[in-house]
């Protein structure tokens, strides 16, 4: 059939021309390379050392700013949800307070850093996989960069575990972005596995990172930082919360392994002690000390050392140091980080809005950080007696009547009560009290703000001047740890930049002593070959360094020999030494002391009293009139709840016990 052939011929013709469509000119018309050729791609990152450095920096931007412990940008609830203090506001700017009053729920977690930390982990994984591609690095730089990447990976997991307990450990190779949700959903590992993974990464970081850094990069992690954090993770793992805690007996993974080990393993303390010893043996770190000065006609000198304290030179006594300044200068920005041998890993402390919760309203603050009486009472008397052993006169409300100054910068107003007098130097370095003097020496204005004698009476000068009447102190005490004597929050004054120690040598010493104290039988470290045992003289030696630096008497071998006594001494020392440094929240939990400590009522002075009712003011009372004073701890709060939104994206993820 003729027409049929013709139809077929024509059809074939059309088809052929259609086929020509697959040609390169069409493709090049759509090409966008000329517009995007100069863009940085992930592949180009690993070619250039500069870009690789920048990529590592970009990865570190997921690190939490741990110096933000209180206010709007607080990185975790730990700053405000410890038992050290309360604030009168449970609001978006003070989110930590919500946990303290049980207003956190999985649907409304207030803090949800989960995904951010995993973003950091992903970057660290990508880095570790591809870092070798960069040929521009020297061997030394390659090791340093690898070390940073291992450190980042370990650190993000460690942050997650601090808040949430056991977490999912992602495979070392990051999932492709289009991996089906089901394949990429990882179950939470047991806490033991998490610890082993993190410790392994900190070890690799320590192997690769340099011991020292040049002045400009003091903030970057070093071998010491990796080891100290590794030790901290191990110490936490050995602690009662994670070591044979039967409270979590029923909390198991799908395969039946408990999330929290049910078998008490005492060797964990040994491992922790061994790593702490490695940090000590780096011989790089020392407690920060400032030499003793004598007073003259212009300036006052170092406080007289009580007779109970060894007058030998530090570290065998406090004879040659100024304990107040030695401790205070760690926090007040007067010692540059490269000169501060106590700092192991630290950040710049962002003064932003964080500190304004301690300043009196008059000096530009909101005045609400109210330290509880329990915390105040844990500060010793100058001669080392616990406050509970102080005489009635020493605890009295009456004014001392005589002013005093020491260390060239600290002034004691005559109106101060006896109970705030003659306390250990760390008290004056850390705490603001009624009639505390805020020197504000950088103030250049005309108002009467210099040497501000702060009073917390109902009609006191710290009270709110504006319309927000709730901004007053509830207990009569606040924290001054991060306040330099020059500081004032006014445009006519300055606030000094400070370093915020994430890990400092004092922690290494106390951690080493704690681990040794707990150790029941000698532990031989398979890595170093060293054997650690409960060595009383070492415990006394290292513990007393912390005591002497604070100008307090040392402990005796007899005290150290007794496990229980030593344990109590350690806990008290941790509490005071690291007050307001974001330690207490985690320490209370790992010791399983949280239930008892938090459920104590909030106590403080009667701030409803007026100046004329001085005696009434100094009466300690239980404060429970406001929502934020009704502090409560439930067992679920050992771990923070995982945000519901996170759970809804991974069907293998289970919530922490008690949070439903």
């Amino acid at each position, binding site marked *: 059939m003729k*027409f049929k052939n*013709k*139809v077929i011929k*024509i*059809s074939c013709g*059309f088809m052929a*021309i*259609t086929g020509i*469509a*697959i040609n390169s000119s*069409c*493709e090049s*018309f*759509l*090409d*966008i390379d000329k*517009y*995007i050729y100069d*863009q*940085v*791609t*992930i592949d180009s*990152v690993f070619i250039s050392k500069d870009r690789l450095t*920048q*990529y590592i*920096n*970009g*990865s*570190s*931007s*997921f*690190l939490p700013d*741990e*110096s933000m412990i209180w206010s709007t940008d607080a990185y975790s609830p730990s700053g405000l949800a410890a038992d050290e203090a309360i604030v009168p506001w449970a609001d978006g700017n003070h989110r930590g307070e919500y946990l303290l009053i049980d207003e956190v729920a999985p649907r409304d977690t207030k803090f949800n850093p989960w*995904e951010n930390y*995993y*973003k950091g982990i*992903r*970057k660290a994984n990508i880095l570790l996989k591809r870092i070798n591609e960069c040929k521009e690095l020297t061997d030394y730089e390659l090791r340093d960069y690898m070390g940073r990447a291992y450190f980042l990976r370990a650190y993000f997991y460690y942050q997650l575990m601090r808040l949430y307990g056991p977490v*999912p450990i992602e495979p070392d190779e*990051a*999932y*492709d*972005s*289009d*991996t089906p*949700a089901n394949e*990429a959903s*990882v179950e939470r590992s047991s806490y033991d596995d998490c610890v082993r993974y993190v410790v392994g990464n900190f070890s690799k970081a320590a192997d690769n990172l340099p011991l020292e850094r040049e002045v400009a990069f003091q*903030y*970057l992690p070093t071998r010491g930082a990796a080891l100290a954090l590794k030790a901290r993770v191990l110490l936490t793992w050995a602690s009662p919360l994670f070591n044979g805690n039967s409270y979590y007996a029923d909390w198991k993974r799908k395969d039946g392994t408990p999330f929290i080990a049910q078998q008490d393993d005492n060797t964990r303390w040994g491992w922790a002690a061994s790593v702490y010893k490695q940090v000590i043996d780096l011989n790089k770190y020392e407690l920060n000390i400032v030499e003793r000065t004598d007073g003259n006609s212009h300036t006052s000198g170092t406080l007289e050392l009580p007779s109970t304290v060894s007058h030998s030179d530090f570290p065998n006594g406090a004879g040659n140091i100024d304990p107040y300044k030695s401790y205070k200068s760690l926090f007040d920005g007067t010692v540059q980080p490269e000169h501060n041998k106590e700092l192991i890993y630290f*950040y*710049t402390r962002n003064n932003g809005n964080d500190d304004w919760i301690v300043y009196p309203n008059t000096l530009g603050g909101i005045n609400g950080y109210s330290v509880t009486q329990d915390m105040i009472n844990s500060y010793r008397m100058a001669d080392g007696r616990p406050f509970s052993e102080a005489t009635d006169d020493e605890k009295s409300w009456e004014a001392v009547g005589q002013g005093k100054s020491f260390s060239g910068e600290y002034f004691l107003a005559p109106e101060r009560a006896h109970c705030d007098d003659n306390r250990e130097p760390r008290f004056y370095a850390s705490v603001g009290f009624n009639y505390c003097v805020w020197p504000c020496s950088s103030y250049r204005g005309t108002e009467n703000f210099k040497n501000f004698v702060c009073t917390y009476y109902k009609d006191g000068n710290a009270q709110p001047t504006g319309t927000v009447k709730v901004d007053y102190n509830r207990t009569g005490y606040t924290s001054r740890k991060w306040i330099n004597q020059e500081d004032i929050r006014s445009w006519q004054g300055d606030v000094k930049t400070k370093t915020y120690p994430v890990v400092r040598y004092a922690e290494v010493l106390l951690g080493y002593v704690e681990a040794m104290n707990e150790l029941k039988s000698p532990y031989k470290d398979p890595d170093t070959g060293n054997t650690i045992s409960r060595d009383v003289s070492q415990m006394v030696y290292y513990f007393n360094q912390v005591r002497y630096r604070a100008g307090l008497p040392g402990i005796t071998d007899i005290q150290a020999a007794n496990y229980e006594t030593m344990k109590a001494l350690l806990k008290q020392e941790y509490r005071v030494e690291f007050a307001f440094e974001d330690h207490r929240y985690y320490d209370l939990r790992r010791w399983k002391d949280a239930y008892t400590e938090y459920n104590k009522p909030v106590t403080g002075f009667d701030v409803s009293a007026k100046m004329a009712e001085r005696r009434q003011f100094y009466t300690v009372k239980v404060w429970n009139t406001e929502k934020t004073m009704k502090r409560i701890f439930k067992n679920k709060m050992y771990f923070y709840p995982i945000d519901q*939104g*996170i*759970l*809804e*994206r*991974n069907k293998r*993820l289970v919530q922490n016990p008690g949070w439903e």
Partner: protein
Amino acid sequence: MKKLLFIIVLLLSCVCTMSAQSVVALAGQVMTKDGEPVIGATVQVKGQPGTGVITDTDGHFRLNNLKTGETVTFSYIGYTTINIPVKKNDERMRVVLSEDVKSTDEVVVVGQGTQRKISVVGAITTVSTKDLNTPATSVANMLGGRVPGIISVLRTGEPGNDFSQFWIRGISTFGANASALVLIDGVEGNINDLDPEDIESFSVLKDASATAVYGTRGANGVIIVTTKKGSAGKLNINAKANVGYSYSPRMPEYLRAYDYARLANEAAASRDMDPIFNGVDLALFKNGLDPDLHPDVDWHDTILRDHSWNQQAHLSASGGGQVARYYMSLGFINKEALMKQAKGVNPYSTNVNYRQYNFRANVDVNMTKSTILNLGLETTIVTQNYPGYGNSTDALWQAASNLTPITVPLRYSSGEYPAYGSDNNQISPYVLLNLTGYRNTYRNNTKIRVSIDQDLSKITKGLKASVLFNFDANSYINESRTKWPTLYYASQRKRDGSLDLIKKRDYQSQAYDNSVGADKKYYFEAHLNYDRVFGQDHRTSGLIHFYCEDYTNSENKSLLTAIPKRYVALSSRLTYSYKDTYFSEFNLGYTGSEAFEKGHRFGLFPAISGGWIPSQYEIVKKALPFLNYLKFRGSYGIVGNDRVSGSTRFPYLYLMGAGGSGPWNAGTGLTETQIGSNNLRWEKATKVNLGVDLKMFNEKFDMTVDFFSDVRSGIYQQRASTPAEMGLPSLPWANVGEMKSWGVDGHVSYKQEFGRDTYLVLRANFTQSKNKVTNWEETIKKYPYQRWTGLPYGIPRGLIALGLFKDENEVSESPRQQFESVVRPGDIKYKDVNGDGVVNSDDIVPLKYSSVPQIQYGFAQEFNYKNWNVSVLFEGVARVNYMVGGTGYIPFINKETGNILTIVGDQGQRWTSRDISGDPSTENPNAKFPRLSYGANNNNDQASTFWLRDGSYLRLKYVQISYLLKKPWMQAIGMNSATISLIGDNLWIWDKGDKIFDPAQASGNGATYPLQRVFSLQVNVSF
């Protein structure tokens, strides 16, 4: 005056010449519409066989010795015969024969060309604007209720914004782009910039066989608009003008001061609060003696007139001959808004208006006998005016609904203008309208289109080729000259009795600002067409089409968005039919878009379709003589949608950008700013269509029904379900969403003629489009009803209301409602869906229908009696819901701001405790408003079925009465005919809602420009 005289003289002379019978000669040329000479046409005097001549090779003829009053007949096979009465000597006649189109040869516009209507096997609705001779200013507004397969909504009546949103066969994707591709003369364009008067016809392409040639752009259907062209013949001038009177048939009405205050006190009492207003206040509100602190202002009154006027005019001229044909037009649209500007305050206008000017020229030139050059020029200029504050009138409507009659006076007696707060939205609408300066916008769109059509029948019969180039340039200038007066608020008086005025806003002197932008588009296409009949029964046609496009817009200022948008495509169509009974068609689009990764840019989109016309069989014709035409059609194909990601371009790229280094203080950082979507593709639509066309009773009865389904896959969505632990810098996007939609559309019409010039046409059309999301990327949900998958798209969610609580007993026995600490009788009772004993956000379930109607229908009648014509259109939607709520609807939700609807003042509409009213009957269980509260009530304000309204309605959309004036004296002055029409638009509505505002607006509180009712008087004159 001189002109008038001249016309009269002319008129008289014409009459004179017509009266005498004389001998004349006629000569000229016979041609087709396209200006091609007709060779061999017969020209003869009617009733005198054998006297005629035959046109020569140029189509010329000459007849001498004719007498006036005789009739000359022009005929040629395949063309309609025409008769022309002899009037006077004319040696330059132009006679145009039009093709004798049998119904089987009728042609319709399809994708990339035209097809004989009988051979169309896809779902295509073609509408000729002759059927839509309305004063409408927007093509989009003419579709709903008139065209089967269109679902449309019109949400506002604001001039310049009153364009309908429409979807072909409803919403079939939840991706970034669900709207149809609109092609104007082959090039993508803005349908709202067209003057409807310039449109010849438009075709709505609905199924895959019709749209496959558009490849990645065809998934949501295509609308092809063809503008008017000139045809050979004498000069044709058409003029149209109309003037419209419009007003708001429905607008929320609010309580005045005294009733407002009383109700505020009831609201306070209902929640055990102290009264808001004391007796003195109430008395002052009632007697109006203190207009400063106890004002009573109707804010609508201060800014609104009761009507506005619109004008529209259009003038076109067309004609031409063998060498060239032209169509030229000028159009003008002016729409004023209802805003009432205060007299004497400003010398300039702050009212909203919309002015559109259109100019168009389409010229066809025969370059050779087989080559036609076409030039199209088109310009649209739009200018708009607004008050200084706000991007539309929305700010005014919101202010008018926010400010209660007692919030502030229009102006304090001391002369100051008021504001109750410092924010822009806390200022009176009067100030916003009159005292904030003004803004105007200008934009223009210019298109230049050149095309060449070449007949290639010399190569092989039936082959044609064409190329087209289009350049499109848009620009805009938005200018503002704004200012603010000093604004005050007084809540009390000073001790001397003067007002204690607090300054709320500082004076701001006149400030100028502008924004300017431009965009451009190049478009090129080439066609090769083939159409031939082999033997008598085998018809084949083929098409190859190539096009490419490049678009840049100055508004896109980032590195990626500024990259030109480009398309390139090759498509083809093959058809074959046998004896006009069996039809088959194969469409193939091979299209590429720059939006995708290299190697993934091109896609192949095939569609096959077939048709069968059993009415062509002799046996059917004999057995069923009343059946004129019966056709079954079916099609199946795949089309794409490349606009997957809204404003984001190139989501497949993995991008790096600057970042910090966090607490490490180690220098600048580099971080991923966009995670590339691997294997990014277009969204895919698999479409099936089954249709029937039927004509019966001498084609008086005409019906088409189509059943369709559209299965979408690869809808581009953010991966909500990826575990957070993957640690992706941002949630990745992927082609993961799936949705299906299905339904039916069709129309039926019946035309009955009663003698000459008298006929009745009845038309009806119906569209139903259901849809279901079959995969919505979502997180793991606690309850199945919390998922989006498995539900219609856009469905509202809320609690199920079980009425109002009768008494305390019922409250205490019911599941605890956790939204508000205290729930009282008269508050809304909700269903505890999950049965956990408490009502909270876990009990929120999907409710009935979305705010886009599932069903849209229309029915129309047209009756013509001699010169009179009456047409009526009803339009309706069904299966649609909207949620009311918020300030201006729920009483006192924002305490002192937010007007109270008058219906709340009606005791029968609200629940009032017997403790307050002293009357048990006021505890009306069926009240429309629950127990009042002063301030937000988190129990009653929840989205729930209590506030869900049925948005279905039936509207008397349009009535036109027109009279055709066609008198001999008109011809004498060159006028052909004139039509005078009276038109009513949006005349009545039947609905089930509160009747506070038009349900089509689907507004929460009606604080938006109401849909207008318009009466127009229109005159069409043709010369």
